[in-house]
């Protein structure tokens, strides 16, 4: 019985971390790429597309090279996301519940 109770006991994955929090010590402040930076660009690395002040819109536009595409929709259908079928959506929206209500 006890074993069965243990089996069904829910152990939350959620961990409440408490507080107040103090700032962690010994954090390295060495420059790391911003999580949203494309290609891990770093300030001062010289990899940026343009220096400040110069209008990047006036620069030569970036054109796709051979075999490169800017959008998935430009690829053949084999590489595109598969849209869900109408029936699947309708089943989710109405489903069996429509029969009951």
């Amino acid at each position, binding site marked *: 019985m006890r074993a069965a109770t243990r089996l069904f006991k829910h152990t939350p994955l*959620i961990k409440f971390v408490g507080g107040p929090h103090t700032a962690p010590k010994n954090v390295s402040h060495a420059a*790391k790429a911003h*999580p949203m930076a494309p290609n891990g660009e770093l300030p001062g690395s010289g990899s940026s597309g343009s220096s*400040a002040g110069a209008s*990047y819109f006036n620069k030569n536009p970036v054109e796709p090279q051979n075999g490169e595409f800017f959008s998935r929709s430009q690829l053949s259908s084999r590489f595109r996301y598969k*849209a869900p079928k109408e029936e699947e959506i309708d089943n989710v929206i109405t489903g069996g519940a429509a029969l009951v209500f």
Partner: protein
Amino acid sequence: MLRNSFVKSSAASRASALQFVRFASTKYDVVVIGGGPGGYIAAIKAAQLGYNTACVEKRGSLGGTCLNVGCIPSKSLLNNTHLYHQIKHDSKHRGIEIAGDVSVNFSTLMAAKDKAVKGLTSGIEMLFKKNGVTYLKGEASFVDEHNINVKPIDGSENLEVEGTNFIVATGSEPTPFPGIEIDEERIVSSTGVLSLKELPKRMSIIGGGIIGLEMASVYARLGTEVTVIEFQSAIGAGMDAEVAKQSQKLLAKQGLNFKLGTKVTKGVREGDVVKIEVEDVKSGKKEELESDVLLVAIGRRPYTKNLDFEKAGLELDNKGRVVIDSELKTKHDHIRVIGDVTFGPMLAHKAEEEGVAAAEYIKHGHGHVNYANIPSVMYTHPEVAWVGLNEQQLKEQGIKYKVGKFPFIANSRAKTNLDTDGFVKFLADAETQRVLGVHIIGANAGEMIAEAGLALEYGASTEDIARTCHAHPTLSEAFKEAALATFDKPLNF
């Protein structure tokens, strides 16, 4: 009368002198450039952390794009047009008889929006006063990496301000469409569409993203014939494909016309009409459309005009974003950049998070922004909201996942509200049930998504949510049931 004008003029000089006194201090611990959601929050937080802080804003009112010409005014129009539409078309079967006609007073609708904006922007000024932030009304430009020049908007003498630290939060502006000239009257950006002088009979919108669809909803509810033209084959950039498809279906039912997989080749104003040439991306078939108003809503680009970033040695990437590192720093440790003008999604709440983090980095050397947990909301009806990963992203990353869905048609509160469109969809790790993404279409989805954000932040499993008691009867029960459906059977469906 003379005495009265003398009193008024003395009061004006006193106000001017007070402003001068405030401007007289030219050295600050933290100088924030830009008073939008990122900038004003950063300024308040820095002041709360004990720094002598100034915030420079050139618009003349705080709150940035979001409060002045973005999220807030559009929400006012969305809410009030939804009420109008519901009263006009969705009241009889609820037992509400309207005697006489229901109509819209367009100028009062706009005035209600302006009132909401005014109240909120002046509220930020009060918060600045409360927290001791100096508000410099002017245009900032870098002199070097430690000094900026502030050109006051009242035309008074320029001021040089020295900062120990800078937080740049200059935001973004609508991206222009090459070859289409915006006059903010007949061909409008997301700014001009919020202040049209009269209700157009026909409106075309380039861009089926969130801004385009929200404005499409506003004007369609008022009776405008709206056509949304989108280059991609689906609406709602960034949405889960299933959610995007379903919301398109619901919006089409409300009378919106969609031209997907269609590119715009020309858009010119001819008198009071805008002529638009479009082309089917696949077939190349051309078509000409006519509209009273054309809204160009193809996105936004970082705003760096007149800031003289090169004098501080700041770098922009090929999309015009300021390059920063993981601590929001530029190549100078004391200049940090937040919000739309740098990497990441252009969302007010993302900028706010970064504003707090930037101030905390300055104070403690540690800040926190979870870029994997930034919700997106589209305030159409029904609303669409999502956070975390979508199915396509999970497939691309090779993560095994389970799906749990629950439709609002099986939710008691939605049934009583006679508002049952949509569903809640959970994506959870197949093995641990950890929540990986939540996608909702439904009334109040924008509020409900906060629970999903909390679950993601704490690393909750769907079972944790399913075992949490949710009040009955509420829409949030659909959230609980969808979580349950990822690992067990839903109870009410």
